[in-house]
């Protein structure tokens, strides 16, 4: 019987010849990432009296979320993480200037097709954009993997999503994912692996694939795969990995899927997730005109260079409505630099954007908090109650194009009007 990508990777990482969905295995991840939560894992290590790591080269630490430190407590916690990285010789350590962990790790060639990566963040699914199995775990479990090198994992069943056709202008991967999450629900892919196929994939940039793999977490996916192709190889080569450095894993032709779904991308329109659940999605036409007080362009879902370019294009020669605070947070230092050099940042600032330092920013409540009754539109991946400030504020989610159109109007707007 054929195997899915998740089955193959988990077999290889647990030293088994073959495993099937439902089995529990002891898997040895290639990489354990930890972000702002690192100090918590360090404190567990101290508490249990562990002094040795299984393999320091398998650790990656990026200080994102609240960067630079906003309070003394954050400063102390970051110092704990920094000192730990120094004392244990963690080569893949990135400080508060680097950006969002997920993007930083991919940009620096630390994520390879076929790898198993676990980390202190639910959006580790994003590594599936490069054909790697990424999945989130808690901080105590991170300590456990640091020390023992392994963790128990249940081999997930898989669903197969086939994307055909092409996006219409102003429609993008974010709209696709909002549509899918609305359709399947917040647990529509719960405990499962989502494999993406179809003739639309080769046309999709790696940046768009990252949005797909990131957002798929919001339908409960344990992991996500977009099988590596020429675009993946090009991305990896540009980030220091030549093909000899990795071994992509593909599903067998007769692999067993729990469910198969196909979507015609040309039928999709711009979508928004309405407060306070990501699955609460509607086509933009249903909510056009809703006033917004703040907009956020950033996050691991949509704070990439291409996302900034999309927004800058729509805003070019236009102005942000003065009633809106438009916060732009490049996902990483590299993205920020690229956007500086190409003039994208200048153009966004001239249109009326407030550009912040790279990182999670407002997505993690690090700046850009909202007051009672305020409404924000965000390109991030979650609109949960109180996530960006007051529990009496509300968050809509959309693509970068919809955010750009909406800041011009001061209200939710259809990006198709601006292209």
């Amino acid at each position, binding site marked *: 019987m054929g195997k899915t990508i998740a089955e193959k990777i988990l077999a290889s990482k647990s030293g088994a010849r073959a495993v099937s969905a439902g089995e*529990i295995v002891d898997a040895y991840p290639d990489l354990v990432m930890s972000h*702002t*939560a690192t100090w*918590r894992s360090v*404190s*567990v290590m101290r*508490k*249990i*009296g*562990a002094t*040795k790591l*299984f393999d320091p080269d398998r650790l990656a630490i990026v200080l994102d979320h609240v960067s630079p430190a906003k*309070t003394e*407590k*954050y400063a102390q*916690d970051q110092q704990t993480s920094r000192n730990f990285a120094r004392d244990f010789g963690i080569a893949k350590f990135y400080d508060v200037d680097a950006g969002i962990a997920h993007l930083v790790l991919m940009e620096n060639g630390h994520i390879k097709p076929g790898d198993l990566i676990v980390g*202190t*963040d*639910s959006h580790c699914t994003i590594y599936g954009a490069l054909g790697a199995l990424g999945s*989130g*775990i*808690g*901080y*105590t*479990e991170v*300590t*456990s993997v640091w*020390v*023992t090198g392994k963790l*128990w994992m249940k081999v997930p069943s898989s669903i197969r999503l086939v994307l055909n056709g092409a996006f219409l202008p102003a429609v993008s991967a974010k709209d696709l994912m909002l549509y899918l999450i609305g359709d399947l629900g*917040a*647990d529509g892919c*719960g*405990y499962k692996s989502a494999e993406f196929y179809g003739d639309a994939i080769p046309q999709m940039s790696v940046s768009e694939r990252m949005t797909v793999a990131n957002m798929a977490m919001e339908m*409960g996916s*344990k992991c996500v795969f977009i099988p590596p192709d020429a675009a993946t190889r090009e991305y990896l080569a540009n980030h220091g990995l030549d093909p000899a450095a990795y071994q992509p894993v593909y599903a067998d032709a007769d692999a067993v899927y729990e469910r198969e779904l196909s979507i015609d991308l040309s039928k999709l329109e711009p979508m928004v997730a309405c407060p306070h*659940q990501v*699955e609460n999605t509607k086509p933009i036409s249903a909510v056009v005109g809703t006033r917004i007080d703040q907009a956020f362009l950033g996050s691991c879902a949509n704070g990439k260079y291409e996302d900034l370019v999309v927004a800058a294009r729509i805003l070019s020669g236009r102005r942000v409505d003065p009633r809106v605070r438009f916060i732009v947070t490049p996902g990483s230092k590299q993205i920020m630099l690229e956007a500086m050099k190409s003039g994208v940042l200048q153009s966004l600032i001239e249109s009326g954007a407030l550009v912040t330092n790279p990182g999670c920013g407002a997505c*993690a*409540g690090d700046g850009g908090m909202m007051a009672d009754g305020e409404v924000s539109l965000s390109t991030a991946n*979650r609109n*949960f*109650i*109180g*996530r960006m400030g007051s*529990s009496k504020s509300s968050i809509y989610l959309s693509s970068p194009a919809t955010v750009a159109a909406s800041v011009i109007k001061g209200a939710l707007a259809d990006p198709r009007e601006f292209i």
Partner: protein
Amino acid sequence: MDTQIAGRVFKFGDNVNSDIIIAGRYLIYIEPAELAKHAFEMLGADFPEKLRKYDIIVAGRNFGCGSAREQASTAIKGLGIRAVVAASFARTFYRNAINDGLTIVECPEAVAAVSEGDNLSIDLVKGLITHDDRGYPFAQIPASVRRILELGGLANYLKANLPGA
């Protein structure tokens, strides 16, 4: 680990996310008592105090979805809640609860039958929830994983099983 848990139920609906259970701004804490002060605060300032009067949380589908924050289960433990019974759990919450030594039970049939304020009892040995004289069997956590729960969580388990120790 207690194998018999009985008490009064507080009931939630579907998709209770971990941002609701404990907001991101409190992730600077890891202590159960400190986290419990702010548990479910997004639903109302009185929620932490209110929930302390209950013993068991019963919830719908996908409990604990969203962020992988371990403090969601720690905060619930800090409230004195002894078990969470849900129709289903999000996978990160499921793992974190086990690693935190918080008893979790997946049992959609019991969830459908129970109302807020009801009393129910959970027998972890038999794998049975009893409510209103009716029994609802549930699937046990796999034995290999249950060992973590029995030792009160992953930190204790790890301490007892340190490599080279």
